[in-house]
């Protein structure tokens, strides 16, 4: 068929262009992905695209994957997904929180298409959600940060004040405080997921305020570059960013979507996929991966970090284990008690010891 097409288009270019686009060479199963930014961000979108490529690799010709980058979290998302569904997509992965309402609207119109929405909280018969326990990774990073800081000041570049980000700050802070009781956190909110210039500015500000380790919950590698120039440490976000700061890069909290995507597409193909499911996996399931540890980290700290990682993976350790007070001093978790899912998913408060307010 393909040979024929090639020959055909060579001789009758104009006619063939009408035909090639109306007769799609159909794979058995079509999976669409929509990204909030470019897959070239080396962060959030990049890792989703790694997951997409894993699907390509796992199923070969049986599955066709398509993607659309830079899809705004607005009415445009609804149109993009509708067009994907119309083009014959069997499953669509919507990989940003703000696609929630558009996903539900489109899902209503296409009951046969299966939707997977990242980091949302609303489901339907043909909409499931998935998210990763990034905060588990931040416990490991927080511990390393607490041990590595000399100024006892850790900077944190945060995106939007949503529960996921607040959870990460709290988790990193608790671990850092445990590793180093003198540690202090400085948080800058920049209200964007991806803006290299703003991210770099925030990092510079934190460094000028004395931070010598920077954590980030924004997507680009700009902070790593700034940290490298300033001679301070930083952590890769979403993917390994050591290429951008070979000396600065301590480790990375890597988003491992690939196993989940492959599993879900397989379920979709053999009919075992279920809607209205909410997946929230962490280090144990491989959805959060701790990247290689830098040689700058002393062996003892490396060992502790790996113990924390393995403890979380096996379930013997929880990032939020009491006693923990809220920022205002009111008790949250009693000694030995661990945080329940509901509080974590809606977390909108700092734990005791973090200064400043969450923007409202």
């Amino acid at each position: 068929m393909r040979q024929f097409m090639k020959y055909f288009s060579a001789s009758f270019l104009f006619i063939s262009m009408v035909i090639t686009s109306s007769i799609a060479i159909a794979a058995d199963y079509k999976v669409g992905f929509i990204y909030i930014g470019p897959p070239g961000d080396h962060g959030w979108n990049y890792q989703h695209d790694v997951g997409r490529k894993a699907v390509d690799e796992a199923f070969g010709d049986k599955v066709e994957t398509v993607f659309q980058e830079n899809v705004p979290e607005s009415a445009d998302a609804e149109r993009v997904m509708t067009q994907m569904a119309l083009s014959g997509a069997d499953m669509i992965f919507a990989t940003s929180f703000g696609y929630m309402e558009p996903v539900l609207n489109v899902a209503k119109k296409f009951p046969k298409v299966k939707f997977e929405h990242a980091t949302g909280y609303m489901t339907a018969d043909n909409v499931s959600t998935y998210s990763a326990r990034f905060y588990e990774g931040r416990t490991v990073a927080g511990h390393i940060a607490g041990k590595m800081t000399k100024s006892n000041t850790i900077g944190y570049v945060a995106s939007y004040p949503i529960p996921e980000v607040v959870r990460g700050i709290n988790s990193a802070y608790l671990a850092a405080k445990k590793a180093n009781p003198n540690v202090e956190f400085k948080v800058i909110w920049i209200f964007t997921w991806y803006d290299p210039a703003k991210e770099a500015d925030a990092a510079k500000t934190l460094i000028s305020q004395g931070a010598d380790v920077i954590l980030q919950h924004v997507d680009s590698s700009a902070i790593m570059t700034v940290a490298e120039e300033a001679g301070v440490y930083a952590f890769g976000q979403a993917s390994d960013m050591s290429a951008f700061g070979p000396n600065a890069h301590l480790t990375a909290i890597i988003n491992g979507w690939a196993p989940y995507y492959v599993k879900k597409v397989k379920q979709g193909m053999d009919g075992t996929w279920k809607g209205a499911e909410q997946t929230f996996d962490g280090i144990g399931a491989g959805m959060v991966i701790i990247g290689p540890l830098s040689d700058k980290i002393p062996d003892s700290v490396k060992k502790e970090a790996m113990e924390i990682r393995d403890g979380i993976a096996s379930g013997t350790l929880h990032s939020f284990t009491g006693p923990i007070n809220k920022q205002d001093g009111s008790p949250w978790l009693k000694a030995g008690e661990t945080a329940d899912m509901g509080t974590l998913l809606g977390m909108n408060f700092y734990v005791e010891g973090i200064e400043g307010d969450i923007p409202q």
Partner: protein
Amino acid sequence: MFKLIPRENVSPVLSLLGPLFSVGLTMIVGGILFYFLGVDPFAAIKMIFWDPLMSETFSTYSIPQIFIKGAPLILIALGLSVGFKANVWNIGAEGQYIMGAIFGASFALSLYPLESIVIFPAMILIGVIGGCLWSMIPAFLKVKFQVNEILVSLMLVYVAEQILALASLGFLRNPDGAGFPGSRNLNQYTSASNAEIIAGTGIHLGVLLSFLMVIFFYVLLFRHSLGFKIKLLGNSPKASGFSGDNPNKLIFLCLTLSGSLAGLAGIMEVAGPAGQINIDFNVGYGFTAIIVAFLGRLNPIGIFFAGIVMALTYVGGELTQFMLNLPAAAIQVFQGMLLFFLLSFDLFVHYKIKLKGNK
């Protein structure tokens, strides 16, 4: 090396051919770009301009979508064109669009869950006022202190974006939204919903208004003395002064009119297709409308078609992205070329080129 000499007689035919020429040249140069990106240029061009309108798979959905996407572009461009004719440059329609949406949505949400038929019309009015007020800032500064309206209106876009973030995270945040940013969905609030007026198409009141405004502006510009005064101000400010017009009044009017229209587009969008105030509510209509206004020759009818063509490049451009793996940036370059070629064509229509030294 070269010298540009204004032509004494500008051919009206050529000037009308400009948009067609620029669309054609964009197709060719864009096609070459697509080719080097490894995408079949014929298939890509066809998918952008043809498939959304004609393909069996997509057209039923995409044709109304083109009007929906085109409506805010047309509304904003109409307002801008009036100012552009008078040499008044409102570059900040994006900010006025945001403020229209915030004003209207704030009003409606402050009444939630009260149901009443007056909420929707009042919300539209307040949205228009919101856009208008935001444009009054550059208007006032321009008229009173001769501050450059281009800079002020543009800078106010960034201020409006910050207010939008504030609204999404603070005063308009959905109390039932589990702590996530974003307001309540206006589509789920019957009295404030800009619901579709043709079932199943998504066509909403804003689309209808964009059609009506085309007619209104046509009358205003070509059948009303105000249109003449505006053109006079643009072509010859001195003559405009001699004829007894107050240029400051006209400047103020041009800016606030375009602000109001942008506000209208904003409230229509937030209550309709977007549904809610959110941090990423604005997607650049206010800037793209500038291209639309010029592509439409600052003529209401032209703007209508330009808006549709621009919407087509969005809807079709999306198709090429996931069907042919064309990067999003390539489509943006494609859209930018439209304006670039139009402006360069205009240059040759309005000027002769002479080699220096050659008399």
